[in-house]
């Protein structure tokens, strides 16, 4: 399943375009999103050190932050994605939280668009020392507000539209004993762009990790969450919401490996695939032989929106297909005393519910909008940050349905 990287660790930005070893759909983890195919025709963008493609909102922990000017830390790992970061990284940020430190205010990193064309890669490090607590918000900023995009259009899906940019981020996280990290992310991606993010987390004993991701757009988003529970009594919680519309393609991938005693992990991903759009949940949960008394579950709930349910269906011309959902939960259990479960559901909006709302005077479109939002609310309600919750609701509220 893994593919080895080329072993190169750049100390400065390479002068010549790297030869990227793109993951293809032949690798199980990349089955539904073939990066090599997507990157075809895209040139590597060498970047510019003076233009930092992210900014950080003022925060009490800013002092522990260092930018791309500092020596780059090595990219570790050897999977297909890290080989790209090896070959093409333009730098990244580093954050080192000292032992015992904690803050109630979330630290916010905003990734800004890098260039009008080409692919670029960044490599970030986050180290949280013993007992320290941090909430980090990662989001990407896009020039065009997503809300003006139609919920679906008659064009082909995102994978068949040539990309103009692909931005890749790799975040390596180390949680020391008893450290706690909440990582909340909002990723947006407009048409003809791809946004790929991977977080690799190493958890020591008693550490706690929450990763919450909202991904929405009509472009391509791939979000990888990799977790290694190396110490006993670790806990990891993953929460995800995907909203793909206007031909969008959103792939949420997770891989959690339990190596130690009494770890627990829980995952709940929800996805909404609007007309012509695709969502994917591809999750691997691996319990190693020594990881006894692991308690883990993995849940994927998916909503497909159907053109037949749209009144405009008969008027519009051109390509129109229902939302498409791929859900692939996978358990690999090698320990004999564990409690693990998984489940996946795929469904459409309930026509009885739509009719019920209509019979009270809500329009067909409004009924659909309310029910779709209600489906998403279960995840939005659990987002740790109040301002993010209202931001997400506002964006979903503005999505046009026709």
């Amino acid at each position, binding site marked *: 399943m893994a593919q080895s990287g080329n072993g190169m660790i750049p100390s400065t930005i390479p002068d010549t375009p790297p030869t990227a070893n793109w993951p293809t759909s032949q690798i199980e983890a990349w089955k539904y999103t073939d990066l090599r195919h997507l990157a075809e025709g895209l040139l590597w963008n060498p970047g510019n050190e003076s233009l930092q493609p992210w900014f950080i909102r003022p925060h009490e922990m800013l002092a522990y932050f260092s930018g791309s000017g500092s020596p780059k830390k090595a990219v570790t790992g050897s999977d297909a994605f890290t080989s790209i970061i090896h070959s093409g990284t333009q730098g990244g940020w580093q954050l080192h939280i000292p032992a015992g430190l904690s803050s109630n205010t979330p630290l916010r990193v905003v990734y800004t668009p890098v260039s009008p064309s080409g692919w670029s890669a960044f490599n970030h490090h986050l180290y949280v020392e013993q007992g320290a607590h941090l909430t980090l918000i990662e989001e990407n900023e896009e020039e065009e507000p997503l809300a003006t995009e139609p919920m679906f259009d008659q064009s082909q899906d995102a994978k068949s539209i040539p990309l103009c940019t692909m931005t890749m981020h790799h975040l390596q996280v180390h949680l020391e004993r008893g450290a706690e990290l909440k990582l909340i992310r909002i990723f947006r991606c407009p048409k003809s762009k791809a946004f790929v993010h991977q977080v690799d987390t190493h958890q020591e004993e008693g550490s706690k990790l929450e990763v919450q991701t909202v991904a929405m757009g009509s472009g391509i988003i791939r979000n990888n969450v990799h977790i290694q529970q190396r110490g006993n009594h670790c806990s990891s919680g993953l929460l995800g919401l995907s909203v793909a519309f206007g031909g969008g393609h959103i792939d949420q991938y997770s891989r959690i490996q339990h190596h130690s005693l009494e770890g627990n992990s829980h995952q709940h991903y929800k996805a909404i695939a609007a007309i012509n759009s695709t969502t994917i949940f591809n999750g691997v949960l691996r319990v190693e032989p020594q990881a006894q008394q692991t308690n883990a579950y993995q849940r994927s709930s998916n909503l497909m929106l159907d053109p037949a349910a749209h009144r405009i269906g008969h008027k519009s011309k051109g390509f129109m297909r229902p939302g498409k959902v791929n859900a692939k939960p996978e358990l690999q259990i090698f320990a004999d005393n564990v409690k693990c479960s998984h489940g996946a559901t795929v469904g459409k909006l*309930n*026509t*009885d*519910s739509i*009719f*019920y*709302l*209509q*019979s*009270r*005077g*809500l*329009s*067909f479109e*409004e009924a659909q909008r*309310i*029910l779709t*939002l*209600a*489906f998403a*609310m*279960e995840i939005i309600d659990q987002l740790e940050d109040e301002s993010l919750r209202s931001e997400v609701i506002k964006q979903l509220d503005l999505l046009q349905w026709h």
Partner: protein
Amino acid sequence: MLEITDLHASVDDKAILKGLNLQIRPGEVHAIMGPNGSGKSTLSHVLAGRPGYEVRGSIQFNKRNLLDLVPEERAWAGLFLAFQYPVEIPGVSNANFMRSALNQVRCQRGLPVLEASDFLKLIREKAALVQLDPSFLSRPVNMGFSGGEKKRNEIFQMAMLDPKLAILDETDSGLDIDALRIVAEGVTKLRREDNSFLVITHYQRLLDHLKPDIVHVLIDGKIMRTGDYTLALELEEKGYDWLKAETV
């Protein structure tokens, strides 16, 4: 107010309504009784515009052709259906649902959107009418409600939307005696000279409270007998078989 002429309805080529005629004038309460499978619920669904039925015939509602209207347009025109099986909607609170629905309906009827404080006053007043606990308003629509609470919630919604014609589809089924009395009293308080009710029921008990002006018996997709309240008493005593026998 409502004039149904030669109404036919079928599902998957199975005929259910077979030439039904019915006329309701403002201020009247009509009851429709009939054995299981006679088409009572189908009639209520066809009136409210539920998809899935093949419909022929004519339904005039306040001089508009109802069959030309989509369900929400029927609601705007003043039609309301209290569901036999109200739908549970997770993630949407009763109060928000009612605010959206009421404002939509008011907007379509040319009335201004209600101020938050006026809405709150109205929602409390109407909840009290059917003795619906105010805590239900903040809960998701019908989620975890008991059978009786769901039915009361239907009548509450009806009171909020103030329809011209309300269809009560077996609102009494699954209600205990007290809940039945509360629902019936709620409906009675909503009666006016300019609105009408069509009450679909199996039992005489609800009709004891509501005192319908006209009672119809629906058998095999047609109205077989129409009479006054005493017809309900007769049915309670004799059952439907004597009427069925007459039709053969």
